[in-house]
Structure formats: C-alpha cells, structure tokens
C-alpha cells in the first residue's frame, strides 16, 4: 500500500488540524469568558439626567428617606446584575443593559412613579439605582468586597 501522501493531501490534513486546534482554542476561551463589571455608580452617572454636577449631587445625597424599591430591572441576555454593578462580556450587551434601565426610568416617569429621596424627585428605578450606589459606597467604606 502506498503510504506516501501526496503534497495536496498533506496540506489538507495540516489545514484540518489547524482548524481543529483553532476551534479548540475558541472553545476553551468560551468556557472561561473574560467578564467585566460596570460599577453601579458609573451606570447611575449615565442613566440619571442632568449635568454632571447635578448627578453627583443626587448620588451624594444622604441615605434615602424612603425605602427604595428592590432592583427589579430584568437583565438583558449577556449581562447580569451583581452587588458591584453590571457584569458583562461584550460592550454591546452593556449598552443594552443601560438602555433597559433608561427605558424603565422613562416608564416610571410617564406613570408618575416617583419618590422623594433626599429631597430629589427620582423615578422609582432611579431611586433604586441610587440606593445601589449608596449601598456599594457603604460596603466599600466598611472594607467589604
């Protein structure tokens, strides 16, 4: 039996092996994706309307005087909410997540779902968002992760 490969066969085999290796490499990367976290405070700075100084003031308010609603904005596909903020892999998913918060804020405002928080009139979602920031800041100041 002729065991010699032709030049063409050899190249094809090598190409197949390379593709397989590449696929394995991609698979390996997918199994351990590189995740990022967008901190609540940065999300708030993007979502709250007003000039930066006003947004900073809203975030610097004393502890909420009314209990904020639980954070209930559904996480779009590709992201999750954590104590630290929005966990995502791809920037496009983060954008979707921020937009979903914005949409929820707008729905709140259209329906008059607002609360007085530290003197500011915030939508319920904004108030919850600010509360998450306040909570994060408290955790940081207490040395917790």
């Amino acid at each position: 039996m002729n065991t010699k490969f032709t030049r063409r066969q050899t190249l094809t085999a090598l190409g197949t092996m390379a593709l397989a290796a590449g696929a394995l490499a991609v698979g390996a990367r997918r199994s351990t994706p590189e995740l990022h976290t967008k901190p609540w405070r940065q999300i708030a700075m993007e979502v709250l309307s007003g000039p930066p100084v006003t947004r900073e003031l809203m975030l610097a308010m004393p502890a909420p005087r009314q209990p904020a609603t639980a954070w209930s904005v559904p996480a779009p596909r590709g992201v999750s909410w954590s104590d630290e903020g929005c966990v995502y892999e791809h920037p496009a998913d983060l954008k979707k997540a921020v937009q979903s918060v914005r949409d929820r804020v707008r729905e709140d405002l259209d329906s008059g779902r607002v609360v007085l928080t530290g003197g500011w009139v915030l939508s319920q979602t904004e108030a919850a968002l600010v509360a998450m920031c306040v909570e994060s800041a408290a955790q940081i100041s207490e040395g917790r992760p």
Partner: protein
Amino acid sequence: MIVDLQEESSPASYEADLCIIGAGPAGMAIARRLADANFSIVVLESGGLRLEPGTQDLARGETSALSYSLEGTRLRVFGGTTNHWEGWSLPLTPIDFRKRDWVPQSGWPFGFEELAPYYPSGYEFLSLGAYEPDAPLPPSPCNVLTPAGKPVFDVFHIQRPESPWEVSKPWQLAAWKQPNLTVVLHANVLPLKADGRTLRDCTISTLSGRKATVRAKVFVLATGGIENARLLLASDNLSNSRGLVGKYFMEHVFSPVAGALLPVADYRPPFEAKLGESLYEGWEWRFSEEAAQELKLLSCGVGVANYKAPPHPAVPGNQEFVPILVHAEQAPRPESFVALGKEKDPLGVPRARLNWVIDDHTQETVRQCVMHFASMATRAGYGRVFIPEPVSEVRWPHGLWPACHHMGTTRMHADPAQGVVDPDCKAFDMDNLYIAGGSVFPTVGHVNPTLNLTVLALRLGDHLKGVMKG
C-alpha cells in the same frame, strides 16, 4: 359723585335705595352694574383715594395659628386690595363648582354655567382685555399619566391687566360721573344694629369721630373676606344664628420655592423654548379634572419662574435654580376661621383675629403637584427637581406664603344650616342684607379670586335690580 366724610361740609346723613359697604372690586362692580338703574346707590369706603397710615392701621389684627399679616395683605383705600393686586386672572373651572366626594364641604349651589355669562363684563371691568374662553391652547407637554392613563396636567393661560394696581382708576372716574351713585370716603362703618331681620341704617365715622347716618332699603356688605366676618361678628353676631360667620377661612397656598428646578441645559433660551416659549406670558399647568378626581386631590396649578434664582442654602450644590411655583386650593375647614380679637381699634371695634390652619389634604395636594411636575420636567428633559424641606418635611408650611386672598368666611349654601348666605348671596338671617366678595366662596379653586368674585358681584348686581323693582 364722591364726597368725603372728613369734610365738614359733607352731609351728616345719607338716604339711598341701596347701600354698598366697601369700594373694592366687588362693591364697585355692583355699583357699576347698576349704573343705569333708576334707584340711588351709596358706597361707603373706609379709606380715601390714597392709602393713609391711620386708616390702614384698622386692618391690623391678631393671629392665633399660622403666621399671617392682616394689615400687609389688605388695603383700606378706594379700590381696596386691588391697589396692590398682581392682576392674575382666570375663571374658575367647572369642577370647582361641583360637589367632590373627596373634598368635604365642597360644592357650590350652582354650576359654572351660572357665572359664565358674566365673565365678559368681568374682564372689561378689570381691564383684562377680551374674554376668549375658546382661544386655542398650546398642546400640553404633559406625558405624565395617572394610573388610569389620564394626563395629570392640563395647560392653561392666566391673564393680567397691564397695570393691575391702577385698575380702580376708571372706577373712580366713573363714580364721579354716575348720576345715581354717591361714594363716601373715610366712612368707617360702625357695628350694625338690625331691627329684627331688617337692617334699616348704619352709622359711619371718620377716625377723628365725625359721624353720619346712612339709611337704605337694601345693604350689601363687600369689605373682603376678613372684614365681612369681623363686621358681622362685631355687630352682635349679626346673621350668625348657625355660628358659621368667620368659619372656613381659606387662602390660596402659594409657594415661590415649592421646588427648585435645576436645569439640564441653560435656562434660556432652550429651556423656555421647550416649555412652549410662553411661561413668562402666563402659561402654566394644573391638575386635569380626571386626575383630580382619580387622585382625590384639590385643585392646584404649577409653573416655573421666568428667572434663575441665586443659590439658596435649601438647594444643594450652591447652584442657581429655577423656582417652581404652586398655587393650591385650600380645603374648607371650620378650624380655619376669623374671630374677634381682644384688642380694639381706635373706633372701639374689636380687631380681627385670624386662626389660619392648613389641613393635610391641602399639603398632600401641593406635594403631589410638585412631584408630578417633577416627573414631567425630568421626562421632558427640562431639569431635575429638588424639593426643599417646607414641602417635604414636617416643618410645613414654613416657606409657604399666603397669596393675600381672603375667602370663605360667609360661605354660600342652599341649606341655611350650612351657609351664611343663600345662592343669591342674601344673608339667611336677614331680609335686606347681601354679602359680596370672596367671603361667600364655598370652595376656592386654585385660581386668583378677584375676577371670580367680580363676576359673582355682577351677578348679584343683576339680582338686586330685580329685588329693587319688586
């Protein structure tokens, strides 16, 4: 004709078919309405043609609840308190007349349609220009909806004359020319003495003690919401068989800083453009009828100032801000009242004592009005709203101002057990005494009262024409 009781040559007695006590907008509207009547009218004015400290001091009084300046919010001079009138004018709305289940003691004995025919004359009398109830309004930018999906706010336009504080000047000119009218200046009416159900005469006096007697077939009391009650109470509780005189005092709850709007962009011109370019000209918002009914709130208007206020300690960030202005109806409550004070004025008449009380319903109305406005402002990108403590905290109502509107103290009702005057403004307990002005308002809406008390007075003028004929 205008005469001055201070002048020694002026008569010591007057006789007329109709005697009107008070030359403010209500009294003078009636007098002008009856210009072509074939009966004589005498109008008694405590002050002169210009403000005088001695007479103005008669307005001083006591307070026993919320702080209130009785002498600073009223003027005793020909034209009355219109002499410091801001001039803002707007008709009451149909819902203001209705019985609202969520507002105890609400409901006028008639509807808006009863006063509607008098608004054109009222506008003319107050130099407001043409009355155009059907003029198009700009589309409301209100995207804020009630839980039932109704717009929270309607947009409205409020008018004012060019020189509101001079609005009584034409009345003065007309008084000189009106053949059947005599206006007596410096004529302070002393406590009235009735003969059973009939008032036959009254005694007037200058501050220096010169007196005269005025006899008339019919009397109209038109001295304002504080003074109408005070004179009746000081007159041995005249027309007060049910103890209602002085009760249900109402003001408009007004706040120049109910909220602070921190603009998203520069206030002008982008801000004004967004709000319809015309806030400065009197465009504002108020609870829609549907919203007031669904949310069970009183009537309340809201707008923003046409200027940026300098930084204020109550507003965070040391930033300039745009004041949010509210103008709310006060709920009628018997614990808010006018009574007689302990001190007497130089004429020996007890001064007024005001016990001004604002209830929780009124407070909640103001709070919700600002909150909904904040939703609208945020949603539309005007700015962010911060509410200083007076509205948000228990310190209410510090920081809120009275609007210098005195109403409700001789309320109108179809049932004698629940009112001081009947739907024709006649005192229930008397046969020939009528009461004009904001004191007869059972409820007050959120709009400024001068126009509305004027049209009510014009209506009374027409009624008196029939009475005098009879």
